[in-house]
């Protein structure tokens, strides 16, 4: 399973909040990316935390620098609206693009990007919030309802050609209270493309709780790495322990 660092970037700073809101500066994106690379991270996801609100993107220069010193896959998301934005992101050195708001507004964008650049570079970002009888997809960094059911949406995204899903629980994000296990299980059952789970990790038992029920293809970590609560090696060890204890 991949251990992935997620860097939410605002005005050239990595920021971290709760429920994707209430943001606080935690460091320089390039310094953090390099440090995580040197610590053995499998992949890095940069999300422009404000771009999709103001329809702009200031992350390209960060990506360009990161791609010169970080030799693991780099994903960029936030504010990518059109095929031309995707092209610019890939030109800057990103390997994959994460699309959420734009995909909800124009689902065919997923298809267009997959056709032009291959499914492997299309990460469909899904922000899920619990409802009385399931989950609803949100957009604009978890601020706006879409009225779309997550389980319907992920199947559609797979059909449109998404190569993998970045599944964020808006409820759990930044709370350090554990993953939304039923959400991951339901999405894992609904699709056959790889799933990256983001939002909620606080302590090793949360990985065990998740892996006892269902196994995603990757786990995204933010606060725990930014605040040095755990190292990449410790997280990897926790995953291995959880996998081993489940097999018994």
């Amino acid at each position, binding site marked *: 399973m991949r251990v992935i660092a997620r860097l939410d970037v605002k005005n050239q700073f990595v920021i971290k909040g709760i429920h994707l809101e209430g943001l606080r500066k935690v460091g320089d994106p390039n310094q953090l990316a390099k440090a995580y690379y040197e610590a053995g991270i499998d992949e890095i996801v940069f999300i422009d935390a404000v771009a999709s609100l103001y329809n702009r993107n200031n992350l390209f220069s960060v990506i360009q620098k990161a791609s010169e010193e970080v*030799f693991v896959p780099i994903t960029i998301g936030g504010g990518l609206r059109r095929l031309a934005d995707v092209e610019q992101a890939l030109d800057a050195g990103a390997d994959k693009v994460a699309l959420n708001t734009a995909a909800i507004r124009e689902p065919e964008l997923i298809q267009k990007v997959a056709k032009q650049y291959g499914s492997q570079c299309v990460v469909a970002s899904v922000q899920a919030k619990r409802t009385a009888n399931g989950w609803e997809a949100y957009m604009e960094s978890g601020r706006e309802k879409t009225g779309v059911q997550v389980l319907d949406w992920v199947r559609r995204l797979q059909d449109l050609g998404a190569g993998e899903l970045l599944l964020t629980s808006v409820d759990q994000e930044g709370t350090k209270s554990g993953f939304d296990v039923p959400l991951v299980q339901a999405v894992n059952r609904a699709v056959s*493309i790889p799933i990256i789970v983001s939002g909620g990790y606080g302590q090793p038992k949360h990985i065990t709780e998740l892996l006892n029920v269902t196994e995603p293809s990757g786990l995204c970590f933010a606060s725990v790495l930014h605040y040095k609560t755990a190292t990449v090696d410790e997280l990897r060890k926790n995953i291995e322990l959880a996998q081993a204890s489940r097999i018994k």
Partner: protein
Amino acid sequence: MKKIAVLGYGLGNVRSVGNALRAIGANTDVSHDEQTVMQADGLVIPGVGAFPQGMANLVESRLVGVIRNYIDSGRPVLGICLGMQLLFDKGTEFVPTDGLGLIPGSVDNIPVTPGEGRLPHIAWSAICPTEQGRQNMFAGLTDSEMRFYFVHSYAATGVKPDNLSATVSYLGNTIVAAVQSGNVWGTQFHPEKSGPSGLHLLKNFINNC
């Protein structure tokens, strides 16, 4: 300083390959210009995407002959991911398409039982090198370092044992991870995205150039 041409044919993240080669001290040029390519000490064929599109772009950019001439010159060539797949006789992705025919074999879908496994195979996977692989592209790497980043749904099949450099196990299938035929190397994984182990492999490549 070794001059490595990275073949630009409109597919994939060529910047990453260039960045990785520069990081290990090579001078690189992304190019589809015949003269630039022919003057380089080594040639890298990168690429992500679909087989038919890859082949069509090579034909359209008049690069098929350039690649053949370059290989005939005896200098080292490295195909990465789609760049490796195109070296084979044919591919069956979407529509059956002839490849460059430089290494015997075909490129086919990884067999997966629905509900039992996920495609694409996107993962860091431990590879199993052959003796030939250990002596060449993986030379100097310890067993625990032989872990590389894969992104693919198709893989080479029918590869001759002599050409096989490494395999990887995925969903119960033994998949071709790396091949070699004389001066031509190919990796299904992305060395430019595989951290220090990937950079080590690229160093082995440029040391050959």
